[in-house]
């Protein structure tokens, strides 16, 4: 990847050339605007750069992107102008994604640990040696029990390859990261209306309620939805109201920021619902037709949630709740958005449910400018496909959390330590629980260091993350710009399919994940006699994509994979208008989304042989296909009974309240005056753990002082820059204070993504160190210009595990802490988390599970429930 040496003279000649060309170019006609992208030129040589469409994967929003390549190196990333959601734009993270590939500390060769675990001593080995060793370990584990092979992934966008691998091995011990992400939001929504997320139509809304989503910085779907928020706010004069404990950029952009006490969003949402129903502002026709409750039932149920009650808990004034309720109910169309604010608490599922009730009761569902169902697209898996594993894994589907359809992976270290399941081999893929999970190094670090509990640890990674540093063997995976992957995300109101494709040959000896997994299987079953190899009969990543994409109806006619290779996305809905930045059709008008998906009528052919029951449910061949309402046959909502379940009967089976409700965090009720709640957040330029080594992002944000209100700071006697000690029930840390008006006085907030102790020399600010044995990337002279010397302090080690007994989600924002001015022995960056205390916290949170002793106490309204023994065990679900 050498760049031609350009002297100032050659540069001059090149730029003189462009000037001349510009002077000779015909005068632009009136109203001709400059194009919004799709091409790129070198500022030095003026040569056009090669454009390769890809799908961004710095985070998981999945924007369409174009990689511009010069001398076989990606020098610029841009949004794909043909992508309907992205419309040619990328965020700061997406713009800097090439540094995943060109990080000087990238791992480019298979490595074997030579010192003690975590000591940082590595030996470069060949792929042959690596695969032989891995296959031998897997072989031994398979002989004992396939479920002793564990794979935990963080961001898995392989499109089914990881699952195929584990099914091929016959192991059900597949763990994800969703419980530290947003799982209770998903579990709050799924039983209610089907999908796990909403798509708010911000561009056309007139009123938006935002509960705890920092959509303008992070969250699903930052870039595409932020575009529509700016559009709605300015072009459509919409009002946006944000409830958050902290002045995020989203709160700071909103017409109103309403600070709430942590974990009380649900109460505010219920009280808003109370006012709407009390003043008869609901959409009665929608409720009676499309939900499983009546208006009268709802009114009776909501009578208990008065604004006075919510105000006392949340600190939001009664008048504000009443005003917002009236505004929301009488301004049409209106929508609502939530993210981790309501969901990441003990009982986060209840909070999410309480919030989503507002667009439901006002009939804003699936309306233009309203609260819409997500639009996605699927693709077929290559055949043959491996069957599911024979036995389930208690780690993947813990019986205490039967409703947690997205697993409870953050409790797994405790379960392994308790001996609930033996592990022989553990894989990690695009995950970093030693950094990202509650307890961090004190919990996952302890687990992965323990050679008795995790006898053999394989990391598939391109970077020396905190968990990879504890591995026994590292298989160098490729960053996203060197991989083939299928993609689709409901990040706008238009569904699409896309691909990632390699922009150049993988650097060093790195291999993309699907090829690497194939190579392991081929090593295990070289002649196919074990029946494994048949599922991995593809030449390379591109060949695998052909199996996915060459037979998708519509795309097939357009050219299948070849179309995607050229355009990156399908379908292409229109062209980007340089004047407005909007996608327009052939007539020059902006394209319009389809609304009212649930009101689509079934055709006569659909109805042939179908049966309609007393509730109007239409079934065919034993499958619910729609619902009859007012004499018409609609497809309805994607729930088993095809309507919105305001009352979730399945929850009641386990003694949970099936109706919209709110539970206060018990330990918040007993807080002392000098105690605060610790919350964490993401900044606009970083993701959870993988961007600290991206130099342009690190330059913008490299440290994370603790936000506190001036009132709090005054009480503690600290000012910005002073050291404070933050002590939780499981540990303490010492960090700097940042005094700001933009935070609730009872909250201290620390950003995540900083304070790495691994992840290469830039993330750890050890730039003067010699390159490690594991680093093989090309040096970047620009790193001589790093001017900052504060890398921040990572708070997760002092945050205990909390699990939502319904959704299984981590209660990130539930930790009660004591904040004091740092003492004489406290040093910046001190951090201590204690395994025993974390273990005690885990035991405590299990008491809230439906099998635990606190469950009944928390649900006096469910006194009639017959207890955990009354529930028949169910086949495990989820994914």
């Amino acid at each position: 990847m050498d760049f031609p040496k350009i002297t100032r003279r050659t540069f001059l000649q090149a730029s003189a050339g462009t000037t001349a060309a510009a002077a000779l170019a015909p005068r632009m006609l009136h109203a001709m605007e400059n194009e919004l992208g799709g091409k790129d030129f070198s500022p030095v040589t003026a040569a056009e750069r090669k454009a390769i469409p890809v799908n961004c994967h710095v985070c998981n929003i999945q924007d369409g992107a174009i990689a511009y390549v010069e001398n076989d190196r990606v020098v610029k990333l841009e949004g794909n102008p043909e992508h309907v959601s992205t419309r040619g734009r990328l965020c700061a993270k997406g713009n800097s994604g090439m540094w995943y590939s060109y990080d000087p500390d990238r791992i480019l060769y298979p490595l074997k640990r030579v010192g003690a675990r975590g000591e940082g001593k590595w030996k470069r080995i060949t792929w042959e040696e690596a695969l032989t060793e891995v296959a031998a370990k897997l072989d031994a584990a398979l002989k004992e029990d396939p479920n002793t092979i564990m794979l935990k992934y963080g961001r898995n966008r392989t499109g089914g390859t990881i699952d195929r691998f584990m099914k091929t091995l016959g192991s059900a011990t597949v763990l994800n990261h969703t419980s530290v992400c947003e799982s209770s939001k998903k579990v709050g929504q799924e039983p209610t209306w089907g999908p796990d997320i909403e798509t708010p139509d911000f561009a056309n809304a007139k009123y938006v309620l935002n509960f705890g989503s920092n959509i303008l910085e992070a969250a699903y779907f930052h870039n595409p939805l932020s575009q529509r928020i700016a559009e709605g706010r300015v072009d459509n004069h919409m009002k946006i109201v944000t409830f958050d404990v902290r002045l995020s950029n989203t709160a700071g952009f909103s017409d109103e920021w309403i600070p709430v006490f942590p974990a009380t969003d649900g109460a505010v949402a219920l009280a808003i619902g109370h006012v709407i129903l009390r003043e008869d502002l609901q959409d009665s026709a929608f409720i009676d037709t499309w939900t499983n409750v009546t208006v009268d039932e709802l009114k009776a149920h909501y009578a208990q949630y008065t604004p006075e009650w919510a105000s006392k808990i949340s600190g939001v004034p009664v008048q504000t709740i009443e005003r917002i309720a009236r505004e929301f109910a009488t301004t049409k169309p209106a929508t609502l958005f939530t993210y981790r604010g309501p969901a990441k608490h003990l009982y986060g599922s209840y909070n999410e449910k309480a919030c989503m009730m507002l667009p439901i009761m006002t009939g804003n569902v699936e309306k233009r400018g309203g609260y819409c169902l997500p639009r996605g697209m699927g693709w077929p898996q290559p055949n043959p496909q491996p069957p599911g594993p024979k036995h389930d894994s208690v780690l993947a589907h813990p019986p205490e959390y039967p409703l947690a359809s997205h697993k409870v992976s953050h409790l797994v270290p405790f379960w392994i330590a308790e001996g609930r399941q033996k592990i022989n081999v553990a894989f990690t893929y695009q995950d970093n629980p030693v950094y990202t999970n509650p307890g961090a190094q004190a919990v996952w670090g302890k687990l992965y260091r323990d050679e008795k509990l995790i006898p053999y640890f394989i990391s598939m990674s391109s970077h020396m993350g905190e968990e990879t540093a504890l591995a026994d063997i590292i298989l160098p995976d490729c960053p996203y710009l060197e991989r083939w992957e299928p993609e689709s995300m409901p990040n706008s109101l238009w569904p699409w399919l896309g691909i990632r494709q390699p922009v150049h040959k993988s650097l060093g000896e790195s291999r993309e994940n699907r090829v690497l997994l194939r190579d392991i299987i081929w090593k295990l079953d070289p002649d196919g006699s074990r029946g494994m190899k048949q599922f991995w009969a593809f030449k390379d990543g591109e060949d695998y994509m052909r199996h996915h994409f060459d037979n998708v109806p519509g795309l097939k006619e357009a050219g299948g994979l070849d179309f995607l290779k050229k355009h990156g996305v399908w379908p292409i809905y229109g062209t980007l208008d340089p004047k407005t930045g909007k996608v327009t059709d052939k007539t020059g008008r902006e394209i319009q989304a389809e609304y009212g998906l649930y009101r689509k009528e079934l055709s006569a052919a659909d109805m042939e042989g179908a049966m309609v029951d007393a509730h109007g449910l239409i079934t065919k061949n034993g499958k619910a296909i729609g619902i009859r309402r007012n004499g018409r046959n609609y497809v309805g909502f994607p729930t088993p009974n095809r309507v919105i379940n305001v009352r979730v009967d399945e929850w009641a089976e386990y003694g949970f309240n099936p109706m919209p409700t709110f539970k206060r965090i018990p330990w918040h009720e007993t807080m002392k005056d000098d105690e605060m709640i610790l919350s964490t957040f993401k900044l606009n330029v970083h993701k959870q753990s993988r961007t600290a080594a991206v130099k342009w992002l690190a330059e913008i944000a490299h440290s994370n002082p603790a936000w506190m209100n001036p009132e709090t700071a005054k009480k503690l006697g600290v000012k910005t820059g002073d050291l404070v000690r933050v002590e939780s029930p499981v540990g303490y840390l010492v960090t700097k204070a940042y005094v700001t008006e933009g935070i609730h006085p009872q909250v201290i907030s620390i950003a995540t993504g900083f304070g790495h102790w691994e992840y290469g020399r830039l993330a750890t600010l050890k730039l003067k160190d010699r390159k490690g044995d594991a680093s093989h990337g090309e040096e970047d002279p620009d790193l001589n210009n790093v001017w900052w010397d504060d890398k921040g302090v990572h708070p997760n080690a002092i945050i205990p595990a909390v699990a939502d007994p319904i959704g299984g989600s981590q209660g990130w924002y539930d930790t009660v802490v004591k904040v004091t001015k740092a003492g004489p022995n406290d040093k910046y960056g001190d951090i201590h988390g204690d395994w025993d205390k974390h273990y005690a916290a885990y035991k405590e949170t299990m008491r809230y599970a439906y099998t635990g002793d606190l469950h009944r106490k928390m649900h006096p309204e469910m006194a009639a429930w017959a207890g955990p023994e009354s529930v028949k065990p169910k086949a495990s679900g989820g994914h």
Partner: protein
Amino acid sequence: MSEELRVSPIETREAPGKRRFAMVVDTRRCIGCMACQVACKAEYDTPLGVNRTWVPYKVVGKYPNVRKQFLPRLCNHCDDPPCVRNCPVEATFKVEDGGFVLQRYERCIGCRSCMAACPYNARFMLPSHRSYTPITNVVDKCTFCFHRVTQNLVPACVQTCIGRSRVFGDLNDPNSEVSYLVATHATQVLRPEEGTKPHVFYIGADRNQTEFGRDAYRKPEVMELDRSAFKRHFDI
């Protein structure tokens, strides 16, 4: 601008037969995502420590009535640029058709007169290390993406602007989007009293904000932490 108000012959606003590119920054649409700043870094391989465009912010108000304001900054491509007047070696010049204020790197002697003359702090000295571009130790600045605009593309920062806060076009074309925005909205330019005739127009900018220079938006204490680190480590 009428002919009488044109004080210098190099001004091209409303000059017949000439283009005058301008940027409108609609602060009502800016979400502070920093995509522009990073896209610019990528476009030019701009080294760490210096920026052609940047987005300072300010937190205003008292709890709970607090807001966050962003003010994207870049070279104003003044119609009457003091940097051009102050350059002793004619390294800095204005392109007549379009109004770009550019830098001839091979003429620059690094005297920093232009940096001192610029009321917007838009110019900087390139350090000796860059990832791959061999132009170092001379003064650099935003070029309004001259190399892109002459290929009929918008500047990189405009291209990626998520909120479509940045709009770029020919102000001498009455039908362009920038002409429309400037004609139909109350706009501000930074430091009009300097007489530089800036061509970056702000919609919705708070006058309290626009009075400050490059870094004055963040809290002084925080700024000081960064500034002292910068002085310790950034070496030109």
